[in-house]
């Protein structure tokens, strides 16, 4: 179905057709949204769906933290707790951080390269449907008498087989995750193809913004790694029909290989786009060009390639992996990661910093993600991993990467592009409240977990006895979760206020560098218009170039949004 324009006012009402089958769909109606082929709307649908799920999965996290706040508590019962950590983890990875990242790409990549549309718009929309329906299926497990899937986000057999996990939760999980993954593949292809083939004249590869490059690296990994998850899910499905498949060790360990061949690259799919967004934000609010652009582009690609060879580091304790090899490739990742950090820090070091909300989140990303990265080297070291794997140390590590890192990047992106996307400004004061509570909550929640893992608390335990001595650190973590809840309330309030107060946003509220800031806010159907044409494509920061050209003729240090110079 394609979008038809509204019928002219004088066209006759189609009374002859009682079915109404040929009535055109109004773009503003809900059906108009669900059948849209505008990349901006598909991107928005994806991000909005992911945002709703982000809140829901966060509620599950709060419930878990309330049970773990004190030793010996088990008011949900372990079966319910197991469903909660499984759906929280699966939801956050398959249905929140991955789709949001790709949705951001669907929205922004065409704008950033000066294209009027995304490649394969219908496939992109279909990808969104698959994702949304997959999420609904996975969650509908909670409505089943046996409950939702309860074997974690990686669902190792034989635990996930029909013998040990009977009921409908796991099949729903398999189908839901399968659909969402096919959806991500379709959208990933579209984004990659857009960046490679749909660039405006003059937009060379090395004039693409860092964010677009990060999407290229991410979607390359999507294409290389996601099919492996599909294969693993098929294997699980077969094993549920015939559980004797998993009587054989070869299939159990084989599943782990297939899964992690997907499972590690996906971590970078949930990281690169947010890193790219942070790069853009840092450059804009440092009032300069992104530092170390070429090195970053190369390192992103090297990173993506290397990421396909590290999967076995999730299997150090299986006794069935070549640990020294996977440890080598994992530690080698510090080289491209180090280059990227050099660029981030270098951008700030030579900047002229303006502390708006997006910048605050981007700045906090740097040290917080670094904790995730540095502890990543530790868990990539077999001699340390034997002790800390499958413990709360891992829970801490993965949340530092995904929450203290990627989610901060997500909020940096959200505060940064919200005016562009909606044409409305968010409130700066509420943004700061959100940010402050987030920083306190994140570190209070996840820092103690490193200690818990070191002391011997396994992950995925519904409760723990008092004599184990985990009480105090768990209490701290749960108090931190309270701060996070408050932070998310401040954020929700900010969104609600923005739509109520409707403070209009100009085309370029921040003095942006890349092309999307040349389009109106929100951009019209085909992005660039005669009143807002593409500027000359002179570098990866064409708008900055244009301001510099103008600045030579005008007085320096006068900025439109009244910032103190």
């Amino acid at each position: 179905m394609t979008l038809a324009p509204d019928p002219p006012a004088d066209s006759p009402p189609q009374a002859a057709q009682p079915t109404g089958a040929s009535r055109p769909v109004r773009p503003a109606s809900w059906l108009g949204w669900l059948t849209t082929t505008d990349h901006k709307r598909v991107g928005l649908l994806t991000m909005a769906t992911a945002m709703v799920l982000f809140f829901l999965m966060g509620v599950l996290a709060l419930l878990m933290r309330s049970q773990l706040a004190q030793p010996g508590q088990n008011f949900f019962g372990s079966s319910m707790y197991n469903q909660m950590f499984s759906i929280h983890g699966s939801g956050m990875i398959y249905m929140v951080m991955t789709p949001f990242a790709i949705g951001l790409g669907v929205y922004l990549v065409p704008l950033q390269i000066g294209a009027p549309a995304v490649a394969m718009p219908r496939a992109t929309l279909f990808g969104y449907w698959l994702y949304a329906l997959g999420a609904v299926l996975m969650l509908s497990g909670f409505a089943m008498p046996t409950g939702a899937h309860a074997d974690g986000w990686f669902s190792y057999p034989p635990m996930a087989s029909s013998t040990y996990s009977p009921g409908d939760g796991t099949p729903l999980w398999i189908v839901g995750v399968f659909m969402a993954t096919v959806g991500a593949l379709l959208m990933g292809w579209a984004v990659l193809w857009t960046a490679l083939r749909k660039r405006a004249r003059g937009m060379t590869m090395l004039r693409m913004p860092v964010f677009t490059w990060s999407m290229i690296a991410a979607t390359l990994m999507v294409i290389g790694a996601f099919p492996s998850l599909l294969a693993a899910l098929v294997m699980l499905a077969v094993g549920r029909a015939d559980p004797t498949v998993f009587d054989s060790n070869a299939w159990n360990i084989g599943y782990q290989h297939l899964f992690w061949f997907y499972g590690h690259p996906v971590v970078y799919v949930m990281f690169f786009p947010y890193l790219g967004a942070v790069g853009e934000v840092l450059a804009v609010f440092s009032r300069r060009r992104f530092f170390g652009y070429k090195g970053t582009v190369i390192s992103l690609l090297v990173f993506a390639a290397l990421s396909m060879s590290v999967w076995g580091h999730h299997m150090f304790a299986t006794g069935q992996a070549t640990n020294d090899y996977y440890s080598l490739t994992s530690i080698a990742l510090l080289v491209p990661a180090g280059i990227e950090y050099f660029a981030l820090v270098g951008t700030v070091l030579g900047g002229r910093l303006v502390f708006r909300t997006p910048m605050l989140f981007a700045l906090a990303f740097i040290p917080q993600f670094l904790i995730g990265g540095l502890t990543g080297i530790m868990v990539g070291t077999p001699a340390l991993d034997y002790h800390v794997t499958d413990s709360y140390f891992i829970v801490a590590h993965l949340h530092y990467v995904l929450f203290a890192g990627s989610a901060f990047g997500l909020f940096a992106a959200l505060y940064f592009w919200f005016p562009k996307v909606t044409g409305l400004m968010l409130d700066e004061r509420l943004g700061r409240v959100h940010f402050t509570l987030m920083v306190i909550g994140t570190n209070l929640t996840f820092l103690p977990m490193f200690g818990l893992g070191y002391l011997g608390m396994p992950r995925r335990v519904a409760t723990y006895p008092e004599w184990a001595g985990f009480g105090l650190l768990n209490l701290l973590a749960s108090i931190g979760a309270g701060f996070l809840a408050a932070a998310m309330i401040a954020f929700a309030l900010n969104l609600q206020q923005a739509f109520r107060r409707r403070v209009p946003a100009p085309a370029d509220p921040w003095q942006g560098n890349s092309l999307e800031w040349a389009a109106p806010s929100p951009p019209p159907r085909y992005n660039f218009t005669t009143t807002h044409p593409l500027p000359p494509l002179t570098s990866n920061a064409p708008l900055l170039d244009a301001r510099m050209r103008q600045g030579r003729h005008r007085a320096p240090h006068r900025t439109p949004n009244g910032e103190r110079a």
Partner: protein
Amino acid sequence: MEQRRVFAQVLTVETVIASVVFLLVLTALLYSLIRRRAGAGVGPSPRSERPRLEVSYLAALVVIAAGLVVYTASANDWMHPGGDAQAAGRGGGKAAPVEVDVTAFQWCWKFTHPAPGAHQAARSGHGPDARPAADAHHAAEAHHAADGGHGSGGAHGQRSDGARAATTTANCRDGRLPTLVVPTGRTVRINLTSLDVIHSLWVPALRYKMDAFPDHTNSFTFTVDKEGRWIGRCAEFCGDRHHAMEFWLKAVSPEEYDDWVSQHQQDGPTGGAAA
């Protein structure tokens, strides 16, 4: 406690490196926040690349990564004295290690200490390594379980031809945890398998864990150098009572250990100790 010693050393080294990196980045950030804020009156740098600096930095990163790889791979080696051959039971030289066959099941553990000599018999094919009923399909592979019994929920069978192996198990409920008894100072080899799903044997005090797979036996060795009792846990999610799947590791003197084994050979399997 080789693993514990190596762990402590590697953790110290990597923590020091990580702290230095973290502090460097933090200092650079704090410096920028103060000296580079818009109010400080400096303009942004026009340089968007420092190729020389970037290349030497790249070289430094490569050197650091290579050093870390060599160091941590050696550490992995130190953790496994005797290497894989030793763990798999082919190691020559030193006195034969004390063997314990560990079977994980939903949701507890069974520890079988074959009588000295029995293990070799089992290996060479004379031992009763067939297992009954539920896991009959595993029988083709030679398991080390000299005791034919296996249990769920703490049930355990008795071998008919006399108690040659000492076995402990429990049901991990109401504080009834099984105890893995080992002698101090001697190398202990654990042969680890599972009856149902994947579990993982973790003794935090040893700083080591190893997964227990069905249809597969993993082996590792360790040595405890002082007497004492430490908690062990299941570290791989295995279902509803995963959180309660604990055991005690108890190290006693070699003489006491021998007494314990011969006593329990007569007694048959014993139950758990209270927490």
